[in-house]
């Protein structure tokens, strides 16, 4: 009998081309022993939800620097719920204005990481959130 690993989708929705942050996070989660499905740049919410479904992930991490988070995030959440993945935790990183944070959390985002967040903190909160899901 093998044991499960935490599977996380890391995606970069929207149109800006800066994926360094997403790659740093992907690498850090790998080093934390997780399996990271990396989908790359310019993902639509539909592409993200589809990948989350096929890969049966425990968590989705989005990196958004373009300012389009208030449009993209609710759409991803809606699609995940619609396809029966409402339990999947959604994490957000990038440039998110202070005032949007409570609104996004209200929508169902588990945590939001701004610039300078330690990667260990990210890995640890994802692990905790996933453990709570299955509890």
């Amino acid at each position, binding site marked *: *009998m093998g044991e499960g690993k935490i599977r996380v989708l890391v995606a970069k929705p929207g149109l800006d081309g800066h994926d360094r942050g997403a790659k740093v996070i992907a690498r850090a989660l790998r080093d934390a*022993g997780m399996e990271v499905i990396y989908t790359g740049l310019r993902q639509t919410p539909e592409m993200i939800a589809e*990948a989350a479904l096929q890969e049966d992930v425990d968590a989705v991490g989005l990196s958004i620097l373009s300012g389009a988070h208030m449009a993209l995030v609710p759409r991803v959440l809606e699609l995940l719920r619609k396809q029966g993945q409402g339990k999947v935790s959604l994490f957000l990183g990038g440039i998110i204005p202070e005032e949007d944070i409570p609104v996004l959390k209200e929508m169902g985002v588990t945590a939001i990481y701004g610039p300078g967040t330690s990667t260990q903190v990210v890995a640890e909160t994802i692990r905790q959130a996933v453990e709570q899901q299955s509890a």
Partner: protein
Amino acid sequence: MRWNIDPQSLAETILQGDRLALARACTEVENDSAAGEQVISTLFQKSGKAHLVGITGSPGTGKSSIVNQVAREYRLRHPDSRVAIIAVDPTSPFSGGAVLGDRVRMRDLVGDEQVFIRSMATRGALGGLSRQTTALALLFDCAGYELVIIETVGAGQSEVDIVRLAHTTIVVEAPGLGDDIQAIKAGIMEIADILVVNKADHPGVEATERALRSMLEMAQGRIRINTGHHGGELGMTGKSIQTSPAVAWMPSVLRTVAIENKGTREVVDEIARHRVWMEINGRWSAKEHLRLRSDLVNRLKDQLFDHWLGKFTESQLEGMVEQVMARKKSPYQAASELLSKV
């Protein structure tokens, strides 16, 4: 299991075409859980129809891009078909984690609900696949996917497990990987049913192609007459169908530029041709036999290992290690002695 779904109803939902159920079953199978075993055992009778196509080659030769185009082209030709892709990437030996990045190259398949892409980490296995890749391919076969493409990790010489799994093996090469191509190809050449030189718009494509062709010519006659050429260590030779050289399969060398979708139609043609050839020459069932046998043997190995290892206490084992450390016993003597005690 993670989702508290009964395996029986999970199996039924998969047959109704529920993709989330299939995704969850993939997770159970990948984790080698009891639920995963049950799902497969329930559905096993449905299997045996899928064409399993393996694709292997060095890192960066463009395997994922070729898979992307081959799957797209196949779907265009067969609008009712379903295609599954299993993309394997390596697990870090240090953290146990992995970055699975093959989906990045498979963007053209997004939005097609008849295509299912699943990324898989090797989780410590060394043959270019994960221990559960065969089982996952079987799950897609059970679920009614006609074409299952298995992309191995970037492979060097010895990651040849794919031949025991796939009906058709594609080896991808690219120009400019060096003149040491001959040395590298000694292992991987033998497993190719189709050879693809990708990035054919790069300089050096003629040289690569020439090297592959001359390799094939040398190999011809040696491996082609004996159709059991993949089966040696599993004792398959006695069972395999003897094919006369006249109907032997000669791998073709195809040029592609996958990111521009050049030459990939010919790859799909060749996959179809290989399937027909296998069916006419009894190789389809020979491959099936090889796969099922090697899967059974592997399963027995694992279970026997767990069973017997459970017979020793940790202190017995550690005591023996101490004696080996002290050079009082050789590893051979230690192993025989432990076994003689049970």
